[in-house]
């Protein structure tokens, strides 16, 4: 359907175009989960703590998805270099 170059481009576009959204979504889900634990589960008794922990986990998850994308594309690059 497509030449190799275009296929590669579309795949990279899908991966990297997705990173931004996934990063933000991870942070919001982490933060939302933390706020939910604080306000609904523990009725505000643990007020800021689960929010912060959730935020930290959310940011960590965001970076994890970022690193996943980077690591996933790395072996392919190495193969390309040996081919050249």
């Amino acid at each position: 359907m497509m030449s190799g170059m275009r296929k590669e481009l579309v795949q990279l576009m899908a991966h990297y175009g997705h990173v931004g959204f996934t990063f933000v979504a991870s942070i919001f889900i982490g933060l939302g989960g933390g706020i939910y634990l604080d306000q609904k589960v523990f009725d505000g008794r643990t007020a800021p703590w689960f929010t912060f922990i959730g935020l930290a986990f959310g940011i960590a998850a965001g970076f994890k998805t970022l690193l996943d994308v980077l690591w996933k594309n790395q072996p392919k690059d190495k193969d390309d270099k040996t081919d050249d």
Partner: protein
Amino acid sequence: MEHPILFISIILEKLGLPVPHGFVGHGILEQLCAPYMTYTWLVMAFLFLVSKLTLGNLEMIPGAGQNFWEIVIGGLDDFFVENMGREMADKFFPMIATFALYIAVANLIGLIPGFMSPTSSINTTLALTLIVWFTHHIIGFKEHGAGYIKHFLGPMPVLIPLMLPIELISNFARILSLSIRLFGNIMAKETLLGILFTLAGMFFAPLPIMVLGVLVSLVQAMVFVLLTVIYFAQAQEHAH
């Protein structure tokens, strides 16, 4: 924001059916008559009729219609095989190819005045995303049984308390990012087109955006399908 004129909604209103004035109606009939629902049915009918008309009877020497579909279906099949292997591709081809065709047509239909992209409603994209998300977990559990949980436990047992929340959060983020990316792109296109039509429609101001809209529509359909394929392949392969 919708297109100023949606001809299906006008026809339905003339027929006496309740068309909601907001995004989603209240009663069940009003919800069924919401523009994104009616245009979803239009896209479904379009795909069904076009494939029926062009592929009425398959022939050994393909005509123009059959040639077109052979290229489309063959291209999609090659693409799936490349990314998730022959076996998986055969198993899930009907589902993912339907998604691809549906999303591509649904994105593109919004470029015609009087039509609206069903994918510019979060309901449609969220539904598609939830189907993909549940299916990839079902694939995982079918393939690995209870061992599928290892996908979420990270590389070392010591790191489980750290990795489990992170993996879960990044997995749930897939729902959000997959649905909102498609919805956001298409809604932005629709909104921009709507604004440009009302501002300077007679001076062909929307034309450049329409050209970009074709690109965005196809790329977003492609990205959605590619990510679906990647998620399925990831769920099926062994944990790291």
